[in-house]
């Protein structure tokens, strides 16, 4: 039972992070390799707002989430919109450079010491007992709940709202979307904003659970195989891929060797690339552009 809970928490972390990869890729066809850093920036955002709004943890959380959304929009406005119409490779390289810059800037601004935003917010990470003798931390439960809400919200947005339809339309055929009057820059900015918001949320929750340090970016990188295993252009695939990668990781840590933790996602990724390169729910032609 405890293993199932651990898998659920880890899968939620990966799913919450990798929906950002999927959102940006399916709208703009760009693989954002700065996503881990943007996630970490979201966590540092919470660290900053926790000190700013001492005694008001909910306000601090809301401000940090809003900040993450604004950062995503700003990244598009300041950098990525110039990449529209350029080769995908140029855009991917721009995200790599952005990631390195952000990592350096965060180290300069916040140092390398482990921070504990949970303590700054005045909260405690209580352990909750579950049937079957398993236990889950309060933040772990919040992670699962947040992932459910984020995915539910994203499905409702993409399927049920006009902007969601336009985002799907622009991702599928940007030229036709422009011919139908859809402003591509607005759609792309929105996808960057939402991706950074969800990634930032993941970063905040991980930081609340396990503390905030510069290695957080590694978790962002480990979520990338989950997105690819599911198929880069599918949110359902992101969920499934996260579950596959998290299951493999937890089971191998439990039964083989905990040191395998960092390599398991990439091992699963390689296996998937050999067997089914377009992922569980991805489409074949999409992969040509990766």
């Amino acid at each position: 039972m405890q293993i199932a809970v651990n898998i659920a928490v880890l899968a939620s972390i990966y799913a919450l992070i990798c929906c950002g990869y999927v959102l940006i890729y399916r709208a703009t066809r760009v693989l954002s390799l700065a996503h881990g850093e943007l996630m970490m920036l979201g966590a540092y955002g919470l660290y900053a707002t926790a000190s700013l709004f001492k005694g008001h943890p909910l306000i601090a959380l809301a401000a940090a989430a809003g900040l993450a959304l604004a950062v995503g929009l700003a990244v598009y406005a300041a950098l990525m919109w110039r990449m529209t119409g350029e080769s995908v490779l140029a855009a991917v390289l721009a995200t790599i450079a952005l990631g390195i810059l952000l990592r350096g800037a965060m180290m300069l601004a916040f140092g390398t010491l482990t921070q504990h935003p949970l303590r700054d917010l005045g909260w405690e990470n209580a352990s909750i007992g579950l049937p079957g003798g398993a236990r889950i931390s309060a933040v772990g439960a919040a992670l699962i709940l947040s992932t459910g809400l984020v995915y539910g919200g994203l499905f409702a947005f993409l399927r049920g709202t006009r902007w969601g339809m336009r985002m799907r339309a622009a991702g599928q055929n940007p030229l036709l979307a422009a011919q139908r009057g859809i402003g591509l820059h607005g759609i792309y900015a929105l996808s960057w904003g939402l991706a950074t918001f969800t990634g930032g949320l993941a970063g905040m929750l991980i930081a609340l659970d396990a503390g905030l340090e510069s290695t957080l970016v590694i978790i962002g990188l480990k979520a990338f195989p989950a997105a690819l295993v599911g198929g880069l252009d599918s949110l359902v695939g992101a969920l499934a891929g996260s579950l596959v990668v998290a299951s493999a990781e937890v089971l191998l840590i439990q039964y083989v060797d905990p040191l395998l933790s960092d390599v398991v996602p990439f091992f699963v990724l390689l296996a998937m690339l050999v067997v089914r390169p377009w992922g569980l729910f991805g489409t074949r032609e999409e992969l040509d552009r990766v």
Partner: protein
Amino acid sequence: MSAPLLRLEKLEVTYHRVITAVQGVSLEVAPGTIVALLGTNGAGKTTTLRATSGFIGLDDARVTEGAVVFDGERIENLPPHRVTALGIALVPERNKVFENLSVAENLDAAVPRPGARRRRSIELAYEIFPALGRLRRREAGYLSGGERQMLAIGSALACAPRLLLVDELSQGLAPLLVEEMMRRLETVRAETGATILLVEQNAQVALEVADYGYVMENGRIVLDGTPERLRAHQDIREFYLGTGGGTGRRRSYRDVKQYRRSRRWYG
């Protein structure tokens, strides 16, 4: 006669800075009319259409001379979304629907021209193409060629256009369906009041619905007139309608020596 809604003035379009695909093209489209732009493959029709809709920049092409004037405003250098916002909607020749979206979503995703009533525009699309109502939930990727064409025109109508640009409506459709689609264009004009510029290889069907026609060859307009005048013209009959050659074998205008052609057009 009322002022034209669209006017091309000595338009010249160059690809990759060296290849001139359209030269000195001038044409006028009066409000509420259907105008046909006829010609064979490579004549420059689609380039002219894309220059009008603002999309040639994506093909590494640009308007190097002349002007595109829509409702008194020069639009040849406007980005595509600004052109669409002015009320110009394009029905492209290929990739004309969002295949992963349902029929209803295809119509809903379109952004109507500012000031237009969005719900009414979509209702009109369903009224003119009732088949779309029955296919509302079907993914566009599973539609037949004719249904796709209806959806393409329907979703262009959802943009509430004042000028509808239609590229090769007859492409890939059975002859009976082509005639049906042409009749629907007349309905579109009657119901929405939209002006239509129709680019078409199939002169026979295009001249059935058009109020006026232009013929393009080698990037230039070589002839224009009413459908009656064009149908009566010896070269149109011979090269585009296949009825005037007298030899029993249909010929292309390219088969005829240039000096004789020049004498015929301008003589």
